[in-house]
């Protein structure tokens, strides 16, 4: 065995550039030149913290604005605060001196340097913006969802690689529960955290408009000519807006929900503002006091005041435009006479109640810029870059809006500007399919959905998760269980299955003798349950979190275990399952709360057909979802990737990921190269963002991880299973994930090697910490062990 020091010495010897080695001076000078070139690129000045002065200051412009694509640029500068009549914003006297350094670069007039033709100048279109509960700036774009975490200058881009159905994202809505929703053509998606499975996708109307989240977390949107919709996390409810003047265009392009739950929609074509309080629709038009504009934007203050802005959309008229607010009784209009910079004004409101108007200068006669409401009048800021709707306001009252060339998002707090450049993204073509970077010859997808795919998994939602078990005080899960304890009898001919009962804190296992055993993962002790009910000797075991029951699929039937009664309930399977469960993968699908089975029953050449069904333990209902044709076999479900994972029985056959909700099949490459000889048994367990596939048999017991974060096979492989493992022999019978201790558990099996007919028992239990890769013996082998 290699020791620590020898290993380090050998590693030291592999250093490609030793610390005593002098790198070629020419090479170093090349590096230095590249660094200088990049550093001196305009717009990459050192970042200065925005000046936080207790007093407003009137200073000369030091506006730095970059419209360049590329690395994120944050330019903090101070612009001239020219309020109405040149007065300071809130009437405070200007300071005697400026505290800012002289700008180091010449700052061009932003209006002159930014294209006024957003449709023609940008590869990426920013469709919506929002501020997350953590202060993140979010942008929905035609190249994906972009998030800038607070105080960072590196954006995170979420695309189809992260689970979005399309890179073309149209809408964002963030709810009071901090949930981040994205919307696109025919779908909405809930952000599940960057470290989790990314996005949970739900189908929606083919095309829908702006979104807003109500105080109860329901997502509201609009569609078609007269529909208002609400998504409760499972189902869409549709409300037809009655008596809405007819028009061929979508009726609303702006939506907001008041704290009392009333939905407010801004319409187009001079149809004013529509509200819906859950019972009645109300209509507000020009003669009620709202701006008479082609389009109306709405926003609601935290105090419930409704604000309506106006968008001329090529149909500008001075009469009745500007901004209006509604206090529940009457509308109050604001125009340039009240300090508003321009009569074309979109409105955006922050959680602190700050009201901003964005003037996009859409008409040649209008000025672009921004205005801020101080409670009674507006302060105009004509010198900010030209901004466009959709705008948003953060908790500190800073306005964020796309620059009108959509190359950056500009933050403006009334004093300083922060410009964050859009990252380089691949724009999505109108058909929603990313353009390939270079023309590629078409490669046929080896997998395809056969026929229709039922969306039951997308439309169902699991109930509350039952309270998970915890280890009692005094127990040590890392301590090996009793030596010589009674234990289940492994099967030398077929692999058993086990799953973890999260409420009980035990692994449920059915052994060769059809006896029910449980392994207490806090004490690492086996318990024979002597449960009622006659069981088959083989099958798949699945713990159904939603019903808090363990299900055994065996022969052509299934059994449901009630731990309180310690009995198995026999249930019949559909006629289509009468050929048994020999080639079945079964797993719990956490979003829908249903068990999914994949039966592989047909083979044509190298292609198998796997039929997917759902089983509802509570109602005993089966639903056939659809069929996938693939040269690979289903090996399980990856929680982190939220995909069903398949692997070819030989490495040259591919790995597909199947979205269980849509049936979409994604080919992610060949199976792991270590599966050189194929494998006859595998099972997936989850943990640490990696779903681990145990591929035994011909690959000499290779055990590899499918890395959910990169959607591919990781390099984490163990050529022989734990310390007692025998190379070339499959010593383990079942693998499952211990959700309580967050580790994989391997239950030793038995081997019936070809040739000599002798059975070798491996009846020990080991765990693997997926974070550290460390093995731990949980149950020592019996005397039967080899």
């Amino acid at each position, binding site marked *: 065995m290699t020791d620590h020091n020898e290993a380090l010495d050998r590693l030291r010897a*592999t250093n490609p550039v030793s610390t005593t080695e002098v790198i070629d001076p020419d090479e170093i000078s090349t590096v230095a030149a590249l660094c200088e070139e990049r550093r001196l690129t305009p717009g990459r000045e050192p970042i200065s913290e925005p000046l936080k002065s207790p007093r407003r200051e009137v200073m000369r412009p030091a506006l730095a604005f970059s419209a360049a694509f590329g690395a994120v640029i944050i330019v903090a500068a101070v612009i001239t605060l020219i309020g109405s009549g040149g007065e300071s914003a809130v009437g405070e006297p200007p300071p005697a001196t400026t505290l800012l350094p002289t700008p180091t670069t010449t700052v061009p007039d932003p209006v002159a340097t930014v294209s006024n033709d957003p449709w023609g100048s940008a590869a990426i279109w920013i469709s919506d913006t929002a501020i997350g509960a953590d202060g993140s700036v979010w942008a929905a774009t035609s190249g994906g969802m972009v998030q800038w975490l607070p105080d960072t200058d590196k954006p995170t881009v979420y695309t189809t690689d992260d689970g979005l159905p399309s890179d073309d994202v149209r809408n964002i809505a963030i709810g009071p529960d901090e949930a981040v929703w994205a919307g696109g053509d025919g779908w909405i998606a809930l952000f599940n955290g960057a470290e989790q499975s990314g996005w949970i996708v739900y189908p929606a109307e083919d095309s829908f408009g702006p979104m807003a989240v109500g105080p109860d977390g329901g997502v509201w949107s609009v569609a078609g000519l007269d529909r208002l919709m609400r998504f409760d996390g499972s189902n869409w409810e549709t409300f037809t807006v009655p008596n809405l003047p007819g028009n061929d265009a979508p009726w609303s392009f702006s939506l907001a929900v008041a704290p009392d739950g009333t939905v407010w929609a801004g319409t187009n074509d001079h149809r004013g503002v529509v509200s819906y309080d859950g019972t009645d629709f109300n209509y507000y038009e020009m003669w009620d006091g709202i701006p008479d504009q082609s389009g109306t934007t709405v926003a609601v203050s935290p105090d419930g005041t409704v604000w309506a802005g106006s968008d001329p959309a090529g149909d500008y008229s001075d009469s009745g435009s500007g901004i209006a607010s509604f206090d529940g009784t009457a509308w109050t209009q604001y125009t340039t006479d009240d300090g508003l910079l321009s009569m074309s004004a979109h409105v955006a409101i922050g959680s602190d109640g700050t009201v901003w108007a964005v003037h996009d200068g859409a008409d040649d006669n209008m000025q672009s810029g921004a205005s801020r409401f101080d409670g009674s009048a507006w302060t105009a800021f004509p010198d900010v870059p030209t901004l466009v709707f959709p705008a948003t306001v953060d908790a500190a009252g800073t306005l964020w809006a796309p620059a009108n060339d959509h190359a950056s998002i500009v933050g403006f707090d009334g004093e300083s500007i922060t410009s964050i450049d859009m990252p380089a993204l691949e724009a999505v073509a109108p058909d929603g399919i990313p353009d390939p970077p270079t023309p590629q010859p078409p490669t046929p997808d080896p997998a395809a959905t056969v026929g229709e795919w039922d969306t039951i998994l997308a439309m169902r939602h699991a109930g509350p998760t039952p309270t998970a078990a915890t280890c009692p005080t005094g127990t040590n899960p890392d301590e090996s269980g009793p030596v010589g304890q009674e234990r289940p009898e492994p099967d030398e001919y077929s692999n058993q299955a086990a799953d973890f009962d999260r409420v009980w804190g035990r692994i449920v296992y059915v052994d060769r003798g059809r006896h029910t055993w449980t392994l207490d993962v806090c004490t690492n002790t086996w318990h024979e349950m002597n449960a009622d009910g006659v069981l088959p000797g083989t099958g798949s075991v699945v713990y159904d979190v939603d019903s808090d029951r363990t299900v055994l699929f065996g022969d052509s039937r299934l059994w449901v275990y009630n731990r309180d009664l310690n009995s198995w309930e026999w249930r019949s399977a559909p006629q289509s399952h009468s050929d048994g469960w020999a080639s079945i993968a079964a797993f719990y699908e956490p979003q829908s709360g249903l068990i999914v089975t994949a039966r592989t029953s047909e083979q044509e050449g190298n292609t198998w057909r796997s039929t997917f069904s759902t089983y509802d333990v509570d109602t005993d209902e089966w639903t056939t979802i659809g069929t996938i044709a693939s040269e690979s076999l289903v090996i399980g479900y990856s929680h982190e990737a939220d995909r069903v994972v398949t692997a070819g029985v030989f490495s040259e056959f591919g790995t597909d990921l199947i979205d269980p909700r849509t049936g979409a099949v994604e080919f992610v490459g060949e199976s792991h190269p270590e599966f050189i000889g194929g494998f006859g048994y595998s099972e997936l367990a989850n943990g640490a963002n990696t779903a681990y596939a145990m591929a035994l048999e011909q690959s000499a017991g290779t055990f590899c991880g499918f890395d959910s974060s990169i959607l591919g096979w990781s390099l984490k492989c163990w050529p022989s299973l734990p310390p007692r493992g025998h190379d070339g022999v499959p010593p383990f019978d079942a693998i499952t994930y211990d959700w309580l201790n967050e580790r994989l558990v391997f239950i030793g099996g038995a081997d019936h090697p070809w040739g000599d007919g002798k059975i070798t028992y491996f009846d020990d239990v080991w765990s693997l910490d997926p974070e550290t890769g460390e093995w731990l013996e949980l149950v020592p082998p019996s005397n039967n062990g080899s």
Partner: protein
Amino acid sequence: MLSTADTERRYRVVFDRYHPDIYAYFKRRIDADTAKDCTAETFLVAWRRIDKVPDGDEALRWLYRVARNVLRNEYRTKRRSRNLSARLGGNGGGSQPSPETVIVRREEDEEVLQALQRLSTQDQEILLLSVWEELPPIEIAEIFGCTSHAVSQRLYRASGRLAKQLGRKRVMKSTRAGQTSEHKEGRT
């Protein structure tokens, strides 16, 4: 806040002193062209955050921290590119770059590097910072944001795991060479 001249001067000191170290850091892990690119990216961050760059030798540790993040982004970009290419039917652009892909090595070196790659990313990095960069635990601790005691423990465990991988590799080789044909038949 520094004046423009002071900013420039301060950056120049940091750059002149440490850019060979940072370039070497990247060159030990990725191909030369990408290493140059990542070095430039690291010093761009240093330039734009020059107010945050600490004085003295701490600057190098700060730069290593930035370099680690730059490297992670590079890997992430490459993985995305690979996955996208795979879906579009391309060749995928290969896997994450690693030293053995860019430097012709002895078989002995390859064995060590393959064993290294089987370790977790954290184990790999802590070993490389210690063995290749020759940083003491206290400096690695600053990069990782943990105590030097924790670094020492992790180093010990990581070297143990590397040793096991190296030992296991030898066993596996000999076993596989002697595998019988029955093992390749599989079971029903």
